[in-house]
């Protein structure tokens, strides 16, 4: 009891703010209680709105948590996080709707990245060779130009069955519909345009190696100009060869069995496709994150403003790439079949019936709750919340992250390669963002502005919760999610204000405005957010 009192004295502003938020919440809840309905049905709107708030909050949380850990650990405000969220949605959509395209694209991407797995070996040999200054300076540029030439030759000829928004048979919308009906048909496979497959695939491997040589060369020059020579004592990195050979092998296997694999994927249940879509989206995010960190962010760590501008640039590049590949129209993503039943026994009357008939909706207090949006997403949000929490609290990686957030120099001085931790955390953070993207896609649909609105929501959520606090990210996301859904609900039923004849109906544009307003109010009372630490 005394400790409770002490903590109240210490954090008076926090407790008062939380109290005000609770009272506001209870008032908002009371306004939604239907006085005319009977029994439990009075609370129909309350339950549905809270579930929707949890759902919106969960998606914001998935993205915000990674953003906040990255910022805490390396002081990088990754403005590309929203765009990467969107990438997760689009890549996941492609896997769910056009798995054959993912299979097509798999081979060249794997073969290309195989070259980069040779980096440790290339680093090692460049150190052994110790090229003269001029040759060392030229090498990365020559490698880069050759890589562009070779890849520019091979890639356009590579057969990836494409889609076209303009033509009905191969439009993505049409595929999405067919997918949700379980009637996807693989399009005719294409072949290399005018060159033998051996030359085509070989060129892509070669291009990857050349690009890797260029990267190793740039890194060597950076080291030479004083940023640390590294140690030369290590022996030949054999492992990188094994990985290289393994990847090349994998790429060729998938190339030769392209058609059977595609046909198989097009015919499996949408639930399996959805699980694959999640895996592919997360893997894409992790790899993209590692790539962005290693090539773009790392050289600029010391200059935070440049990193900010850089990630903004990356964000707009990503949006343009998405427009170029997927086109501008809005897509919908089919829900996995276990959350999509509509036939007999649906909407489900009970939890048992829900599981038995795989209903897309469940009857709660006289209202319909959507299984995927309002049950599955919040549960997943909570699962991720707990998983990441355990990762932070119980693993060595988490321990280093928590220490590094405070003082990364001291972590280095303990003999820990913080640089590597940065890459891992950046990769995982982006992985969480793409997870959010693919999970949210069936509920929000896909547009190229998906990332922008999410970025604003996550910034507001983190400002409310405290920029680098993990519980803060969860609280902020929850508050933003609930606030938005309550305003939307009140937009439908209206608020009765005394002395006004007509109930006041907040319009949709008020949603972002109110969110930002709440942030401003909270920041005025608590400049570091609810759970932020005073520095």
């Amino acid at each position, binding site marked *: 009891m005394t400790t409770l009192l002490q903590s109240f004295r210490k954090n008076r502003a926090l407790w008062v703010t939380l109290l005000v938020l609770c009272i506001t919440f209870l008032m908002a809840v009371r306004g939604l209680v239907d006085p005319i309905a009977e029994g439990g049905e009075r609370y129909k709107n309350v339950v549905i709105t809270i579930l929707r708030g949890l759902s919106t909050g969960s998606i914001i949380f998935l993205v915000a948590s990674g953003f906040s850990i990255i910022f805490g650990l390396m002081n990088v405000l990754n403005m590309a996080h929203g765009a990467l969220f969107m990438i997760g949605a689009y890549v996941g959509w492609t896997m769910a709707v056009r798995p054959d395209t993912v299979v097509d694209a798999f081979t060249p991407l794997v073969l290309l990245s195989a070259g980069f797995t040779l980096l440790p070996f290339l680093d090692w040999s460049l150190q052994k060779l110790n090229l003269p200054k001029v040759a060392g300076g030229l090498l990365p540029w020559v490698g880069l130009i050759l890589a562009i030439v070779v890849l520019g030759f091979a890639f356009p000829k590579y057969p990836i069955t494409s889609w076209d928004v303009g033509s009905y048979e191969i439009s993505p919308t049409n595929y999405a519909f067919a997918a949700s009906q379980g009637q996807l048909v693989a399009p005719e496979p294409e072949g290399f345009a005018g060159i033998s497959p051996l030359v085509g695939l070989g060129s892509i491997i070669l291009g990857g190696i050349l690009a890797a040589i260029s990267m190793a060369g740039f890194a060597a020059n950076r080291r030479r100009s004083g940023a640390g020579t590294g140690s030369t004592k290590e022996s030949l990195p054999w492992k990188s060869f094994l990985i290289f050979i393994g990847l090349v092998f994998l790429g060729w296997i998938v190339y030769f069995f392209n058609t059977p694999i595609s046909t198989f994927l097009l015919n499996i249940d949408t639930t399996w496709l959805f699980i694959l879509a999640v895996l592919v989206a997360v893997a894409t995010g992790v790899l993209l994150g590692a790539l962005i960190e290693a090539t773009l962010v790392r050289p600029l760590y010391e200059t935070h403003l440049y990193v900010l501008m850089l990630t903004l640039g990356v964000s707009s590049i990503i949006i343009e790439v998405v427009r170029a590949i997927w086109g501008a129209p809005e897509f919908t993503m089919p829900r996995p079949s276990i959350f999509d039943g509509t036939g007999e026994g649906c909407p489900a009357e009970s939890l048992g019936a829900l599981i038995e008939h795989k209903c897309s909706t469940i009857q709660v207090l006289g209202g319909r709750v959507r299984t995927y949006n309002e049950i599955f997403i919040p549960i997943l949000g909570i699962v991720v919340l707990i998983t990441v929490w355990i990762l932070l609290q119980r693993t060595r990686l988490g321990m280093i992250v*928590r220490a590094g957030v*405070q003082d990364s120099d001291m972590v280095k*001085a303990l*003999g820990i390669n913080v640089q590597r931790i940065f890459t891992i955390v950046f990769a995982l953070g982006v992985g969480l963002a793409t997870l959010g993207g693919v999970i949210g896609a069936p509920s929000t649909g896909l547009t190229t502005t998906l990332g922008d609105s999410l970025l604003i929501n996550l910034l507001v959520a983190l400002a409310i919760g405290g920029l680098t606090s993990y519980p803060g990210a969860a609280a902020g996301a929850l508050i933003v999610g609930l606030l938005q859904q309550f305003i939307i609900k009140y937009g439908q039923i209206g608020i009765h204000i005394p002395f006004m004849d007509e109930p006041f109906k907040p319009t949709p544009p008020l949603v972002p405005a109110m969110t930002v307003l709440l942030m401003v109010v909270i920041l005025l009372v608590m400049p570091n957010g609810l759970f932020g630490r005073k520095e």
Partner: protein
Amino acid sequence: MDNKALLHVNNIHTFIGQFHILEGVSIHVPKGKIVAILGRNGAGKTTTLKSILGLTPPSQGSILFDGQELQGQRSFEIAALGIGYVPEHRAIFRDLNVSENLKIAERKKGDLARKEAFIFDLFPDLKRLIQLQGDHLSGGQQQMLAIARALVPDNKLLLIDEPTEGLAPVLIEQMMAAIRQLSAETTILLVEQNFIVASQLAEDYVIIEEGQSVKAGKMADLVKDPATIRRYLEAA
């Protein structure tokens, strides 16, 4: 130079931003001894330790540790060669508890388990506090933890920056006893503003003034030389 030196800092220059902070610092640390770095506030003592660790990498000069050149290596590689750092103001991780603050310093699995008995023998208080968050420790407890953290892996050299700063006299005594006990097994490069403490602990000294090492020698000689003490160490 004699080859018993564990650490040999040779005329290093360090810039922080565009400020030329170290303008020629040389230090010689023989194996098994305690060497004290002395000097007024802002002389560059802390920067010297950070330069050895590569946290503020020197732009010129050389640093030989156990026969290896440290210049140009990255901080974590330098530390992993066997250098423990006890920084100014302790730098305890406040979101980690005492046990985690020790655990994080492991370089091999089992480091802590191996050293635990020795560490708790040296600082019995820590054992009692093992579950406490870093930011709930008192200044003295943080200092003990900071030293204990540097003892978890096998280190050949400890860099200790102002271990008695802000401590009560009783604690200073305790800290001195601990450092003396440590010096039986490791070499220590110690920054210490309190001359009485430094003179009782160290065998050799280096004086740094305005970023340069201006004088070095045996502590026993310095104690008998009030003119030098007045010239370099007392408040100007």
